């Protein structure tokens, strides 16, 4: 279990993403911070690909890096922020307090992350006298077991059965499916209600954005009847 090539690349990309995330916050020109955020999102796409979430990786790059950040960059270019390049709020006592509080939040999060896998990852001395805390309920199987087939066969079969109403077909379909098809199988059987709600959410966002643009001060102001 020593250092493999995959681990080296993980540490490399992890370092690059943390550095560019820091630069997103601290760089003065907003357009550079938008481009750096697009870099962070593409690197997250690569991480998703390694975590065997192939479709989510492509969706992440298409939606976030390819659409949301393009909107940010375009809006910033339209604002022509030559004057806007103001500095980060400089060292008032409030800023120091904020940084300390964020440090504490980060420490708590990292600690929680380490604790959840039971062995404290060497950071936190888990007193070996009493048994290390069992992996919490939300993780059904042992964390560090070599990853079995991506999707727990028994667990998903009931979804397939639920949608196909006959158990035999469920198993047959389930075995020959790729990750993305299993994902969509679950999306369209168990989470169908949320899927329909999302289309309403998108409609609300469309109407909201267009109404905002057509409002009195907006860019696409349309006088009645013209």
């Amino acid at each position, binding site marked *: *279990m020593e*250092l493999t090539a995959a*681990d080296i690349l*993980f540490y490399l990309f*992890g370092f690059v993403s*943390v550095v560019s*995330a820091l630069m*997103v*916050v601290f760089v003065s020109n907003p357009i550079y*911070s*938008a481009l750096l*955020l697009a870099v*962070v999102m593409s690197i*997250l796409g690569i*991480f*998703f690909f390694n*975590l065997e*979430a192939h479709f*989510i990786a492509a*969706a992440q790059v298409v*939606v*976030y890096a390819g659409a*949301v950040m393009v909107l*940010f960059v375009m*809006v*910033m270019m339209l*604002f022509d922020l030559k004057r806007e390049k*103001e500095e*980060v*709020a400089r060292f008032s006592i409030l800023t120091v307090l904020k*940084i300390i509080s*964020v*440090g504490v*939040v*980060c420490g708590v*999060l*990292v600690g929680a*992350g*380490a604790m*959840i*896998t039971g062995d404290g990852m*060497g950071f936190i001395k888990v007193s070996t006298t009493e048994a*290390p805390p069992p992996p919490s309920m*939300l*993780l*059904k199987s042992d964390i560090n077991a070599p*990853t079995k*087939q991506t*999707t727990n066969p028994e667990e998903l079969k009931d979804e397939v059965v639920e949608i196909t109403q006959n158990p035999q077909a469920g198993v047959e379909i389930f075995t020959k499916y790729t990750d993305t098809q299993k*994902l969509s199988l*679950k*999306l369209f059987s168990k*989470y169908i209600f*949320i899927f329909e709600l*999302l289309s309403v*959410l998108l409609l609300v*966002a469309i109407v909201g*954005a267009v109404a905002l643009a057509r*409002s009195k001060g907006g*860019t696409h102001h349309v006088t009645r009847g013209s």
Partner: protein
Amino acid sequence: MQDQKGAHTMLHVGLNHYLVLSGVLFSIGVLGVLLRKNALIILMSIELMLNAVNLSFVAFSKYAQNMDGQIMVFFVMTIAAAEAAVGLAIAVAVFKRFKEVNIAHFENLKG
């Protein structure tokens, strides 16, 4: 994983490495929201926080062998994109009115 060679096993990438990375990215997003005055940078920091959450969702989904995590990432992605779209529409409206995107102007957004 509990054997004595703490150094070696710690380096092999497991679930907790992804959780640590997600925690760090989330904290940087919080830092961005607190420190910056420019409304656009605040919106971008919120996007960064949502992405960090997505990373931990996918990490859990892989190591717990359960697809729910990835489906949750779908929903977080949709909501984040809709929020960014409408948020920027408001930011453009404020910029047209005040010629500046400092969040100080956001409080006179009357009804």
